[in-house]
């Protein structure tokens, strides 16, 4: 099930170039990383679908509800943790979360009980009676997460949730986000440009850059064998390359492994195997070309490498 669907979403600020340009995509359920470099349009996209920036072109729906028509219902079922440092002046943590719970429709007593629960849950149990403005950066991140969870939403938007947090706090929050999705069925859309954090938790990622949609991928699909293999051979490379070409197997030099391979008198490639072909075909070509295969391993990329490849490929186009 797709929790967010966008059709031709375009948003401009005044006379500047569009922050979002004709974005058409669907964001699946689970934990989804909304990735892109700074200025890619991630926060703008979230604010558009939440109705915080109502003046945009195109169509958008959240949890099957139209963003323009069903804004209030969406906000009942959605939580939002903003990127910017946000707090309510002159309020303690418990007052602020209780207050925001009431604004989401909870009766006062239930909002207070719920505020205690979520503040304890995010690790602020001992600081609930302190003024929010006295919180450290990490505590404010936790506070913002608590405000987004107080009404038990189905979908939570997290805009750079880990920025400013210490390593221990990051791990705790990652655990918490993972638990929300896995154990409690919450959908989480997580905007970030810190890819290793996203990689630890997300099921899928959506890539934005310069206000444009660049692709959506399941994380397991990204980090496993996608038909690319790293190949190192000893022997006559030209004949072997020709043989592989006849089998529709494409080769590009392996820039990362080139230096090490050359020092050993080898040639290193990244081979793209078309559907229906596999390692056995490579070995057959090697046998026919009389070369020795020293390495044949699937290319496993991490999210950062894939992310850079996606953006780099698009730019080269």
């Amino acid at each position, binding site marked *: 099930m797709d929790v967010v669907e966008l059709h031709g979403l375009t948003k401009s600020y005044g006379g500047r170039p569009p922050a979002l340009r004709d974005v058409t995509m669907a964001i699946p359920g689970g934990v989804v990383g909304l990735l892109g470099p700074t200025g890619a349009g991630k926060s703008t996209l979230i604010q558009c679908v*939440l109705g915080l920036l109502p*003046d945009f072109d195109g169509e958008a729906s959240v949890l099957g509800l139209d963003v323009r028509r069903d804004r209030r219902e969406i*906000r009942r079922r959605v939580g939002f943790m*903003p990127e*910017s440092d946000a707090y*309510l002046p002159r309020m303690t943590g418990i007052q602020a979360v209780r207050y925001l719970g009431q*604004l989401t429709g909870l009766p*006062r007593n239930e909002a207070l009980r719920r505020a205690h629960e979520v503040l304890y849950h995010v690790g602020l149990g001992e600081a609930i009676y302190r003024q929010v403005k006295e919180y450290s950066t990490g505590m404010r991140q936790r506070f913002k997460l608590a405000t987004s969870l107080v009404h038990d939403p189905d979908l939570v938007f997290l805009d750079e949730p880990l920025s400013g947090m210490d390593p221990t706090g990051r791990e705790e929050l990652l655990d918490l986000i993972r638990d929300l999705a896995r154990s409690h069925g919450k959908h989480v859309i997580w905007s970030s440009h810190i890819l290793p954090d996203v990689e630890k938790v997300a099921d899928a990622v959506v890539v934005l850059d310069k206000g444009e949609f660049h692709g959506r991928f399941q994380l397991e699909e990204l980090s496993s064998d996608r038909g690319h293999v790293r190949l190192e051979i000893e022997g006559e490379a030209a004949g072997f390359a020709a043989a592989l070409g006849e089998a529709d197997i494409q080769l590009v030099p392996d820039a990362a492994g080139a230096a090490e391979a050359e020092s050993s008198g080898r040639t290193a490639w990244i081979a793209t195997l078309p559907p229906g072909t596999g390692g056995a075909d490579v070995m057959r070509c090697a046998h026919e070309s009389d070369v020795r295969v020293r390495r044949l391993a699937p290319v496993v990329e991490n999210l950062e490498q894939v992310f850079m490849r996606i953006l780099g490929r698009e730019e080269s186009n």
Partner: protein
Amino acid sequence: MAVYARGYRPYRGQGRGAPAWYVIYREGYSLAFKNWGFRIIGLLFVVWFVIWAAGLYFTFGLQDQVDRATRGVGTQNMLSAASQLKQTLSIFYSGVAVLTGLLAILVGAGLISDDLRTRALPLYLVRPIRSWEYVLGKALILPRILVWTCLLPGLFYYLLVGLWQPPGETMSWLGGNLDIVESVVMHFLTAATSYTGLMLLLSARTDRRGAVIAVSAAIIFAGSLLSLIMARLEGLGQVMKYAGLPVNTVCAIARDAVTASVRTRRGDTHADRILSFIPEPDVALMIGVGLLALGLFSAIRRASTVEVSA
């Protein structure tokens, strides 16, 4: 222990809470009392109120009893109770105007600008509330405070003097002087609309509370000074009263005009000159309502998007 091990409990409640505007209003009203400046001014107001209540008693209520005991006839038979009360109200509200102006500045400056400064607006707007509900909640805070400073004291004094009437005449006296109630209510409405409108208008324009305080103080108190200076000039008054200097009118309603409705004495020339610069109560109220409409429009427009802070 991992955070998630503490457990996340789903919310199963079905109850519907209070309307969002009421929640915002109630919270904002209680937060106003956390401001030390507010507490000090509130204390000054209470002192001022007690002084004039006591003054009324000693110059009127007590005197009446003494006169009855010694001469067999009450003071009220010799003096007009209504006239005495109007004099007291006039002086009382002159002092209250200063305190009310300070209260309005202290409470009103942060109505929206505080939320802009702390970037709390997205925390509100992501809730199922409309921008007008947010603004309505904010807009009701100041009038609620002005009920205590502008409305209830006048009504209290009115009832007090009514109770001091000879036995059996209380109700007839109260019924016969409803114009005082009308003046007090007009005074409250003018103060509530003009101060709320002015503070909403300024507070929605910037996230700098200090700037809002400075500008609103300049408008409220310098406007009053301006009225006073202009009143000393011959011949200009009537020209500028309605058309010549709009800012003077706006300034005037923010301080002096709010007391105009209870200034019933027009005996001395100097007072008349000052009052000539102050719109009539009906006009002041209309301007206040206009200012309120402008403030509401500006605040709703500001609260309908986070685009400026995006």
